[in-house]
């Protein structure tokens, strides 16, 4: 009789990140640190105008400058001028204008690339930009989405004869019937403002012909080396098998590096043309205008309910700003939100319409949450407004309408099937951590005494969808890629393990977390496992990192590949131990004969046998490795309850996050410390949208928030200490039980903050506050409410 042995596992332990010593000791290898002999540096002449004809462009003056190797406008570049790709044509009749890397005859956004100079130093390249002669004839700029759709508006792209990129409709049930039945209909217009991804490391790319072969290696500060390789092959015509893409250390992405940028296309093409390494690193000023932006939607939302608070239906009409061109998934971002407007609530009908609109602004695309923060903001705001309208406590209204834990799996009105969830448990825990009743009492007291500093409580009970998959679903949405992930696990003859993943971390801690998953299955210590990633030469297959997919999807591949490796090893071990495979149990990294612990073979010894191949069972091939490519059966659905206590100084409009409590349910946690870190960063980024960040343009299409002096991002000094907690309701559609955590905080926190501000001021007649809720905005909102009350 055998006794079950509890295997010591690294899974679920808050171990410190393997990556951090390297990051903290300055041993990082950013793309801009790469110095190759013979490198030429590219500098870009960008358009200072939002919309103009290029009436003259002469780059010859630059060629005469010291150190200059080459200079190109679109004409000189000819067929090396790209075509920035868009892989998500959301409708059959979508308008997809050309997006050349260097503008041809016309510029359509401030920051459009007009010409490039290549020189032997970055300084020489920048200096020579002054010697390019360019003349513009200014055209009317299209900056307002509603005006852009009126007939007679100036056109961003003349050839498509409209500024409407597409109209996407998804009617679910009969909203008009719900509306007719409703006692109450609350309608609001929310502006989900434009944000600029301001990662710590600006974008950078180096491309180099490798000399001994036709290979061109591209190092890029990207989230998507694998996808980028495919796209660069398609765009440049360079055979894919001659391209190797490496993402070295990457200092943040947040969706802003989920892209195939014009600069990456130019650098790759010019490295091939010139036969030498080409390098480009963006300045922070370029970052603000030329890295894609996020959000920028006008959201008209209408909720129909009974007077006792039963939600009947929801109608959402969006205008989504595409900017001047379509980039990788520009049109699709609002559709990622489309499914999430009904959120955690049960209702009979849901009507969704989105119009994509071209404007003379920087293109939009994925930014942490991509569509889901916008949706969550609108639904969580309108639920609070509905509560106010019918005089119901906002948390009670949520409880009355949410899916209860015993109703899962639950298919929502939008057609998604949520596998698991427990909104009651997360909410109960959050309310206890928050001292909800105590703060409500203080709020009442401050109102009664007319305190200049009013208190409000903001609620956000959110869910989201992570890990875009399965691939056939993405195909049905016209997304031109799959949702799978790959992993190869190798047991090396010296006992070390290599985990080759197709995910591409840029701050998430994959090296640690993936080691923990493999360790828990292989019984090998975490420190003996090396995670190989972000290099198409060493990790040929992958779909990279975005949309909180890496653990939800990639983690499954690691689990499956590790388990397959154990099964192959079991056959070899059984042969060595002269027993049948079924007589072996695998405990703590060693195969033992059941009932005879003296007969065993460690995984490392099996790996050595597989390497020498002197005595393998018949039909078993040498080497010990296994791979898995996993296409999940569905999305995963993290959820949680976030609560913010907001103090509003009514004399100045200054707001302060006094207390922030969040309880997130991200399913099984591989490393709770990494989960907590992701929640902290995410919450900070969501608060940033609520209070600080917002790209502003003037009517000529000039970006006014073009530097970090005007585009404000908060630091630790501007944020409270977050009280984080978790509940664990494992996903049943993902074998590890994980759901994803990269975007949860960002999605949840924005409405919690704004709901809190409105709650603090509602007794003054305030029913909404625009984002970012700057002191001036809040103060003017209070003044307007006072005027309205007179």
């Amino acid at each position: 009789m055998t006794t079950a042995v509890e295997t010591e596992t690294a899974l679920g332990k808050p171990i410190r990140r393997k990556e951090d010593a390297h990051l903290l000791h300055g041993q990082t290898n950013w793309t801009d640190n790469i110095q190759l002999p013979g490198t030429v540096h590219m500098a870009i002449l960008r358009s200072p105008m939002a919309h103009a004809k290029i009436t003259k462009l002469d780059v010859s003056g630059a060629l005469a400058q010291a150190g200059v190797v080459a200079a190109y406008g679109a004409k000189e570049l000819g067929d090396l001028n790209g075509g920035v790709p868009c892989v998500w044509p959301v409708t059959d009749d979508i308008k997809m204008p050309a997006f050349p890397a260097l503008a041809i005859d016309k510029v359509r956004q401030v920051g459009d690339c007009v010409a490039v100079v290549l020189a032997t130093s970055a300084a020489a390249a920048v200096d020579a930009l002054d010697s390019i002669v360019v003349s513009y004839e200014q055209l009317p700029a299209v900056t307002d989405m509603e005006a852009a759709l009126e007939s007679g508006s100036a056109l961003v792209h003349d050839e498509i004869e409209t500024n409407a990129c597409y109209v996407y409709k998804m009617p679910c049930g009969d909203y008009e019937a719900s509306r007719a039945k409703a006692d109450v209909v609350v309608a609001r217009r929310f502006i989900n403002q434009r944000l600029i991804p301001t990662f710590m490391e600006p974008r950078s790319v180096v491309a180099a012909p490798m000399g001994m072969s036709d290979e061109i290696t591209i190092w890029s500060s990207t989230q998507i080396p694998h996808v980028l390789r495919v796209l660069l092959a398609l765009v440049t015509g360079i055979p894919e098998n001659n391209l190797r893409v490496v993402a070295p250390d990457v200092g943040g992405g947040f969706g802003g590096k989920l892209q195939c940028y014009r600069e990456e296309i130019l650098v790759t093409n010019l490295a091939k043309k010139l036969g030498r390494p080409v390098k480009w690193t963006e300045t922070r000023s370029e970052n603000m205008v030329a890295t894609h932006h996020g959000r920028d939607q006008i959201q008209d939302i209408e909720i129909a309910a009974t007077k006792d608070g039963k939600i009947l239906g929801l109608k959402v009409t969006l205008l989504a700003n595409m900017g001047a061109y379509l980039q990788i998934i520009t049109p699709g971002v609002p559709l990622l939100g489309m499914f999430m407007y009904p959120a955690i609530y049960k209702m009979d009908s849901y009507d969704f319409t989105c119009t994509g609109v071209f404007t003379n602004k920087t293109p939009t695309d994925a930014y942490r949450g991509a569509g889901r923060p916008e949706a969550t903001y609108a639904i969580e705001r309108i639920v609070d407004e509905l509560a106010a309208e019918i005089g119901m406590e906002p948390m009670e209204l949520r409880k009355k309408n949410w899916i209860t834990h015993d109703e899962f799996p639950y298919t929502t009105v939008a057609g998604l099937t949520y596998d698991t969830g427990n909104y009651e448990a997360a909410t109960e825990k959050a309310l206890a951590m928050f001292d909800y009743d105590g703060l409500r009492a203080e709020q009442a007291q401050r109102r009664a005494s007319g305190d200049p500093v009013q208190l409000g409580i903001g609620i956000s009970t959110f869910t989201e969808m992570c890990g875009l998959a399965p691939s056939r679903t993405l195909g049905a949405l016209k997304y031109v890629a799959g949702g799978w992930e790959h992993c190869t696990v190798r047991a090396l003859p010296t006992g070390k393990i290599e985990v080759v993943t197709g995910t591409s971390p840029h701050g998430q801690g994959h090296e640690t977390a993936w080691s923990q998953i493999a360790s828990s299955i292989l019984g090998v210590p975490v420190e003996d496992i090396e995670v190989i990633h972000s290099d198409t030469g060493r990790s040929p297959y992958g779909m990279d990192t975005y949309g909180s997919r890496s653990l939800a999807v990639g983690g499954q591949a690691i689990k499956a590949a590790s388990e397959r490796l154990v099964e192959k090893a079991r056959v070899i071990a059984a042969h060595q131990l002269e027993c049948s495979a079924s007589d072996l149990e695998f405990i703590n990294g060693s195969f033992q004969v059941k009932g005879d612990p003296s007969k065993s073979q460690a995984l490392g010894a099996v790996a050595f046998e597989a390497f020498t191949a002197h005595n393998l069972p018949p039909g078993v091939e040498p080497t010990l490795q296994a791979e898995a490519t996993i296409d999940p059966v569905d999305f995963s659905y993290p959820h949680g309850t976030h609560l913010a206590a907001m103090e509003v100084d009514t004399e100045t409009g200054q707001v302060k996050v006094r207390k922030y409590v969040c309880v997130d349910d991200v399913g099984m946690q591989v490393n709770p410390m990494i989960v907590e870190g992701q929640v902290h960063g995410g919450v900070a980024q969501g608060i940033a949208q609520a209070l600080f960040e917002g790209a502003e343009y003037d009517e000529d299409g000039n970006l006014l928030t073009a530097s970090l002096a005007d585009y404000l991002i908060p630091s630790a000094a501007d944020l409270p200490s977050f009280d984080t907690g978790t509940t664990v309701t494992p996903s049943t559609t993902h074998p590890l039980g994980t759901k994803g955590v990269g975007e949860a905080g960002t999605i949840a926190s924005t409405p919690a903050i704004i709901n809190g501000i409105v709650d603090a001021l509602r007794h003054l007649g305030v029913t909404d506050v625009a984002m970012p809720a700057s002191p001036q905005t809040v103060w003017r909102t209070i003044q307007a409410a006072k005027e309205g009350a007179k």
Partner: protein
Amino acid sequence: MIPVEFDYVKVTSIDQAISALKAGGEDAKIISGGQSLLPVLRLRMAEPSVLVDCGSIDEMLGVRDDGGSITIGAATTHHGVMNDPLVQEHALLLAQATATVADPAIRHRGTTGGALAHADPAGDVPAAALALNASFVIAGPGGRRTVAAKDFFLDYFTTAVGPDEILVSFSIPKCDWGSHYSKFNRTAQAWAIVGAAAVVNVQGGVIKEARIGLTNMAPTAIRASTVEAALVGASSAAQITAAAMHAADGTRATSDLHAKADYREHLARVITARAVRAASGI
């Protein structure tokens, strides 16, 4: 973000500095901490031919006790100024204002004299220097002269320091009045939307005299003279609030992304009252 090519000279005396400025002509610029100048160079908003580094001139470093006043070398860092015992004892308002400048990294590099000579209307230390009646020692080819605070700040980014001159130090009469700097900004690292720097002489619970400098309410830091006059004799919060209603009088507030002029004027009234109440304990 690459500046235009420039020459760089490091000097160790005021005389060398003046010679280097003369040699460099009108395109020469003084640098010490570089926290305001370098971003301007990197954005190519200025293209000086030569930078004269005055960060290592002994006479321009540190704080000394001159009996009735303290003297602060112009190249002393913000960090050095705000933590100096003499400043904390005799010119607390300056320490309070300096502590709000940007962030710790910048305060370790940037110099208080540099910030005064830069004269950014949104900078924090000019308002404190005005309220404290500072005086400025300026050296040039013709020797040295002393300029009172009220005559030092002339216009946007313009002071009494001429192109061939250098700010050596500034002195502050010892002041044991209550003091407070109220800075209103959107993030900790951001420039002031409005700031109010107040020193208040309170005797027996009554304000005898008050001096108030305002940040970012005009092309230069300015004194809130009407408020100062109205505060004399005040002994209650209500009287302070009423006096502070004059805070926008005579100002020339501008509009920008963070605040339109009317909101700045409103803020000036609110935070002037708050600064005076904190400084006076009333």
